[in-house]
């Protein structure tokens, strides 16, 4: 049994932590968010130079060949600085899908570009009605002699306005709710018929609504097998969820530490407010909540580690349980951080609210706590 980081992982952690501490302070982040792009291309170039963008990709494409643990290490540290650059959409979503759709020319072309920092990606899957059931999809791709023609509207596409390339999920057969019959396509962001409406998210990240209006793409833009897009999506979900939850535990650590520190310096009634037991007990609860969430991330890492668990059901139980635990802990920790900071916690100027908003967003991504609890129940409790 061993929960230690390897030497390489410790170095990676150190490299991200140092960058966040030295070059990505709260003011820098604020400037980046209010810039037109809402991200820093300089930062992204540094991420590439430091090798972070290569971590999950196979050596075959010039990647580092890292796994979930390496991703968790990076994401936790990025979380501590609530870094807004599109690591999740470009590396985990877009890059993840490319890596998992079988060997193909598009991946061979684009993955090296991702690693160099020249290709920014987005995954357009969510629609106005789909909420957490991604397969609830109305966007269609129709086959013709010349290739494919895509029509439909996607909501809240992360990094949608900065992406050079977009993977779009569209229905190629079946009914609106069917798991099968969805296919993935690669499109250049400037293809005719694509219109992009960008906006900021409450967590400082950039997203967009994207309309596909008779968007014509070549036949070889199809990624993986026809109608089996959801299988590829399911393959990347463990890493995406582990990455997001690792980011969340980084954020929780910052919030708890800041809150405890604040109560020691804030005086009311002639004493530091940390001396009130009413607050002490609550901070003990938030401390425990953060530890429990961390344990769940480790548990999921073990479940999806190499050869650790063959039981698919048990793996999925750990994955859902992780998202449930992170949702519960983040809600408690975020709300207590604001409450215990009093009026200060309500200000836009202090960093607390910004950390809380990123936690809120993570909770709503790829299923909130209740969604995962339903899934957990379904695979855990049956009479026979």
């Amino acid at each position, binding site marked *: 049994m061993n929960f230690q980081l390897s030497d390489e992982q410790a170095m990676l952690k150190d490299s991200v932590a140092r960058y966040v501490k030295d070059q990505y302070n709260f003011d820098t982040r604020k400037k980046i968010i209010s810039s037109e792009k809402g991200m820093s291309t300089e930062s992204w170039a540094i991420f590439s130079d430091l090798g972070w963008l290569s971590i999950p990709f196979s050596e075959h494409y010039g990647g580092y060949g890292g796994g979930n643990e390496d991703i968790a290490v990076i994401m936790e540290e990025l979380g501590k600085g609530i870094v807004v650059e599109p690591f999740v959409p470009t590396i985990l979503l877009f890059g993840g899908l490319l890596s998992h759709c079988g060997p193909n020319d598009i991946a061979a072309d684009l993955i090296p570009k991702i690693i160099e920092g020249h290709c920014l990606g987005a995954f357009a899957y*969510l629609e*106005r*009605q789909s*909420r*957490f*059931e991604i*397969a*609830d999809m109305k966007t269609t791709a129709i086959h013709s002699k010349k290739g494919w023609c895509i029509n439909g509207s996607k*909501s*809240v596409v992360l990094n949608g306005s900065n992406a050079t390339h977009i993977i779009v999920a569209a229905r190629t057969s079946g009914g*609106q*709710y069917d798991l099968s019959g969805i296919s993935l396509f690669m499109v250049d962001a400037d293809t005719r018929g694509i219109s992009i*409406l960008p*906006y*900021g*998210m*409450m*967590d400082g990240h950039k*997203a967009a*609504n994207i309309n596909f209006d008779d968007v014509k793409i070549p036949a070889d833009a199809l990624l993986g097998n026809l109608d089996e897009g959801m299988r590829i999506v399911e393959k990347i979900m463990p890493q995406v969820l582990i990455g997001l939850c690792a980011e969340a535990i980084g954020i929780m650590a910052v919030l708890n530490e800041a809150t405890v520190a604040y109560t020691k310096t804030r*005086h*009311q*009634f*002639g004493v530091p407010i940390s001396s*009130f037991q*009413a*607050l002490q007990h609550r901070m003990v609860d938030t401390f425990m909540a953060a530890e429990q969430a961390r344990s769940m991330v480790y548990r999921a890492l073990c479940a999806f580690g190499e050869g650790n668990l063959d039981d698919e059901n048990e793996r999925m139980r750990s994955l859902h349980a992780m998202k449930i635990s992170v949702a519960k802990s983040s*809600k408690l920790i975020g*709300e207590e951080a*604001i*409450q215990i900071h*009093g*009026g200060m*916690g*309500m*200000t*836009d*100027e202090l960093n607390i*609210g*910004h950390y*809380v*908003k990123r936690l*809120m*967003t993570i909770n*709503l*991504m790829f299923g*909130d706590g*209740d*969604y995962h*609890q*339903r899934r957990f129940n379904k695979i855990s409790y049956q009479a026979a």
Partner: protein
Amino acid sequence: MDVTFTKEDLVFRDEVREFFATEYDFSMAGSLNLATISDGECYKDAIVKWQKKLHAKGWIAPSWPVEYGGAGWSVTQKFIFETERGAAGIPAVIPFGISMVAPVIYTFGNEEQKKKFLPRILSSDDWWCQGYSEPGAGSDLAALSTSADLVDGEYLVNGHKIWTSYAQYADWIFCLVRTSKETRKQQGISFLLIDMKTPGISIKPIVTIDGRHHLNEVMFEDVRVPVENLIGEQDKGWTYAKALLAHERTGMAEVADSKRAFSELKERAKYEVNGGRAMIDDPLFQMRMSDVETELMALEYTELRVLAAMAEGGTPGPESSLLKIKGTEITQAIQELQLQLVAYYGGGIPSNVQKDGCGHAFAEEARCGYLFGRAATIYGGSNEVQRNVIAKMVLGV
């Protein structure tokens, strides 16, 4: 035990309903929703316009003594009015003038002060704000240090107030200031009314986590305030303010508004779907909703118990102390469900051109409501402080 209304009460209820239906400009509802205001001046104009209509009807300050402009309503009538207002989705009257400073003026002020201030509060011609909190004096309000020194027949005010809600609209501010440092810290405090146009006052906006401008810092630098603006006796302000705080706290159950918010939630849950199924049909979401609704049903009757005691002319029992804590916790619980309902779509901050960015019209209200709503357990005496008070005063520990 029963809660049926008399015939007269029912007639009154119909009159209230009719008035709201005909006089309230429902097209202005967006501008009047604090969770979604984007244009402050527009908000102020809309609310003042509405309050003037209430004033014309004689319903702006029903709780005041009749001689100053109150409506002389029974407790039941006040309850009916509030219930109907909430049900119609009409915002409550801005409290700072009508229900915060005015009771202090008519209870502890002199005749000139009553004549000068009360009519303009009733007519909403003066907007008031509350200058109590300071950077060093939040929960421990008596630690305040803004000073008022009597110099040549005027008070010279110096200091720094913070978290002052809507000071950017205000014509007047009522302040607690320190007039003596000699005594126990609660003594030495005075209640002073200050014209916001007086030289030496400056305002600095504070943007909150919902991205909006509700709060301010108000700085006083050698601000000269005539002694006529002192309420009651010098150094006795704490007593007056405490009477007022009690007023503020019982007004925070907000049952009528929570019932309205809950029914909106229920309505939205019919249209929000997951996997083709309406959220209102989802057993887990139903559990979340009924957790909140049952608490609200209980709170409604707790409030009725308080009102019944007051109707009998008595003072409310210990149950009144829980109104603020439970009321704010329920408000927040409903806001949490709104956010859960709008899900990921609520995270987007659409530009002004594109109000319902992701096709979910209540997204902004849900997000901003939740975020600004966090403050309800902080202001008006934080819920921690409220619990301390109940432990001491009610449980006697």
